[in-house]
């Protein structure tokens, strides 16, 4: 059951710091709403209007953008919730009930980083894991794309309203995530525009929704690195993809490894580290192989009925879902 005051307060769109201060001073969500209505902070017209609305009216507004509000108590089932105040999340789609694996990294990623992020996304999705990321440019987008391509379930945590697409070209990707059984979530109410100071706050949510964090590419001072530090503080496993030592966007990653984070030296490492088991035989084989590719022989060795798998491979190739070259199967988009 959604607490009425929480729902209203969430519509104010306060960042965690101000929300925390307000709740500390007023003592309850209902009091905080009153303080806001009295003009405690300067808020947008929409927000002020929302604070005065009835619960039913708010629900109708959410429904209009295909969203709903999930209170804090229903989130993070098995995980420790963020320490920062959080009233709940605005959700489009369905939030999976199990913790995911976060894939984070630079917005200005290299081709290498993008390829790896996508392959990781595929691998995780193929193993039935929920891929959590921020739907930003670069690594985030690539991880989500891999997840979608593998037919997996993914969660995008935004730092703006879930009906505002930024970057705009990720709109399709976000909608595919929702259509694929995943979700796009935000702590900010629908309509919240992008603002640089809102983005870091979502990092704690990405960590909050994930059992492990994989950093693909991160500069020395970057959101991805903040996410990784947060994850370490909160006791999550952090895995890092190493990079070139002379490339700025690898420095954060390499430092994390220096500090003791576990490096990922090959996609197969994931299987062991995350205890991934490749999906059941019924799952589309093309999702088990990324752009990095896997030997036909290995796929057959894993199969219960290797001959049936060979048939499957032939069908997938004819359908353009995989490419077999020199005995290696590559997954295609």
């Amino acid at each position, binding site marked *: 059951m959604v607490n009425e005051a929480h729902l209203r307060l969430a519509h104010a769109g306060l960042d965690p710091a101000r929300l925390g201060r307000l709740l500390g001073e007023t003592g309850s969500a209902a009091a905080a709403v009153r303080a806001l209505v009295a003009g405690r902070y300067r808020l947008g017209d929409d927000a002020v209007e929302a604070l005065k609305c009835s619960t039913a009216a708010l629900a109708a507004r959410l429904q209009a953008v295909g969203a709903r509000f999930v209170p804090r108590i229903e989130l993070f089932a098995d995980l420790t919730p963020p320490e920062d105040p959080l009233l709940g999340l605005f959700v489009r789609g369905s939030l999976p009930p199990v913790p995911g694996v976060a894939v984070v990294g630079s917005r200005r990623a290299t081709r290498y980083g993008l390829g790896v992020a996508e392959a990781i996304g595929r691998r995780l999705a193929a193993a039935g894991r929920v891929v959590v990321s921020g739907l930003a440019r670069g690594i985030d987008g690539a991880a989500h794309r891999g997840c979608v391509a593998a037919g997996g379930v993914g969660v995008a945590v935004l730092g703006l309203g879930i009906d505002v697409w930024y970057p705009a070209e990720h709109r399709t990707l976000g909608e595919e995530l929702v259509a694929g059984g995943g979700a796009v979530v935000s702590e900010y109410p629908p309509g919240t525009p992008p603002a640089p100071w809102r983005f870091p706050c979502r990092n704690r949510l990405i960590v909050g929704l994930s059992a492990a964090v994989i950093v693909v590419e991160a500069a020395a001072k970057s959101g991805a690195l903040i996410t990784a530090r947060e994850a370490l503080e909160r006791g999550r496993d952090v895995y890092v993809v190493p990079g070139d030592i002379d490339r700025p966007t690898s420095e954060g990653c390499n430092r994390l490894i220096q500090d003791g984070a576990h490096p990922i030296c090959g996609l197969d490492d994931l299987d062991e580290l995350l205890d991934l088991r490749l999906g059941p035989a019924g799952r589309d084989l093309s999702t088990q192989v990324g752009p990095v590719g896997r030997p036909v022989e290995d796929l057959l060795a894993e199969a219960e009925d290797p001959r049936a798998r060979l048939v499957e491979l032939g069908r997938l190739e*004819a359908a353009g879902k995989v490419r077999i070259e020199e005995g290696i199967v590559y997954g295609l988009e």
Partner: protein
Amino acid sequence: MFFASTTSAALVGVRPHPVRVEAFIGEPKNTFTLVGLPDTAVREARDRVRSAIQASGYGFPTRRVTVNLAPADLPKGGSAYDLPIALGILSAAGIVPPQAARVVAVGELALDGSVRSVSGGLAAGLVAAERGLPCIAASETAREAGAVPGADVRVVTTLTEAVEVATGRTQAPAPPPVVADPDGDVPDLADVRGQFQARRALEIAAAGGHHLLLSGPPGAGKTMLARRLPGILPPLDEDEVLEVACVHAAGRRTRLSRTRPFRAPHHSASLVALVGGGSGMPVPGEVSLAHRGVLFLDELAEFPPSILDALRQPIEDGTITIARKGITVTFPAVCQLVAATNPCPCGYRGDRKRSCRCTSAAVGRYRRRLSGPLLDRFDLRVQVWRPDADEFLARPGEPSAVVRARVVDARRRQRLRGVANGRLTRAALDALEIEGDASKLLGEALAAGKVTARGFDRVRRVARTIADLAGSDAVGVEHVAEALTFRGQW
């Protein structure tokens, strides 16, 4: 009696030819002439025969002795005519009864009168069976002759014994049966761990008579796999055993076995060694010695292009005709080609552990050496991987006997249709019974440019065999899908 003729035999190509050995005893005059296109070894027979006859206690006639080997235009070589010459002379001179010449005899005579084994037993056996004459030869030669059904073969050790046996005064033993059981020395497929796709390719190759190309790094087990192909092929039947034995006899080798031949010539072998030829009586090359069996070309890219080109025709036609001065012979060459190649000059391209050090230009050059008409013949192409440590511990594969049972069954289905799938022509392929969704899948692959026109034929041939292995009359979608995975990159 001044004249006698006895029978011997020669192989011309793979055909047994009776050779009439005519002996004529003329006026008193101590000469011994041998006519009828004899080579040096045959001419030397005069001294061996004279000595052997005397050492056996018969007197050599002190008359003009003329021996003619007919037909005269057939080149004759070797020492196998010693025994028939001696028998002919003895009966022409009236020293022994005339029945002594009414045999098919082959054997070299030692100076002391003992009979030695020579090659050519098979031809003697075939001629003897055809003529209904007894065949007389020393032990090894007799064993070979004895492989011919219906041949009455007698083992003799000396000239005296030969006379006794030919005239019916003594019963000499028949040679022991010789045709070796299959599997005796053929390695078993169960030894191969993992390698599922390559094993499957081997099974399909065996079932449909498809040529197979194995590509992979050194140590991946390409040779190991190829050597196991004869073991999953049905054993040779009685006629085939003789057919194969004749080819090998033409190459002066004895081969009497129900196991299919496996020939693995080195890439430095000469053109003649591979396709046959040579001076004098042409000898079969490896492509013919592999008749009804497997010709394995390891390191295919190392073979000179001229040799690969020369191999194409015999493999296509199943025969090779060699013309030499005065003689033209045709050898059969119905063999299944298995070739192995490294994926690149260093061999480790695509390997799990070691990285390839070849430039892409070098890889391109290496592959272009293989492109061309011969490569088109490989219906099945498969990548072989160096096994993981895990695979050594993996479940052992199916034993050859189990696979062979499926192969035999699939081959039986093809025999009912008339032709091995590996030899289906485009016209026959167009008439293939293909299920709707299977041809749709083929169409998709073709439309997507994944399969070329030639590749299309190859896929259909392989799919037909997969369907036969599955016991299916029509080619289904799963058969086509599996066939698509055996296209390889070459």
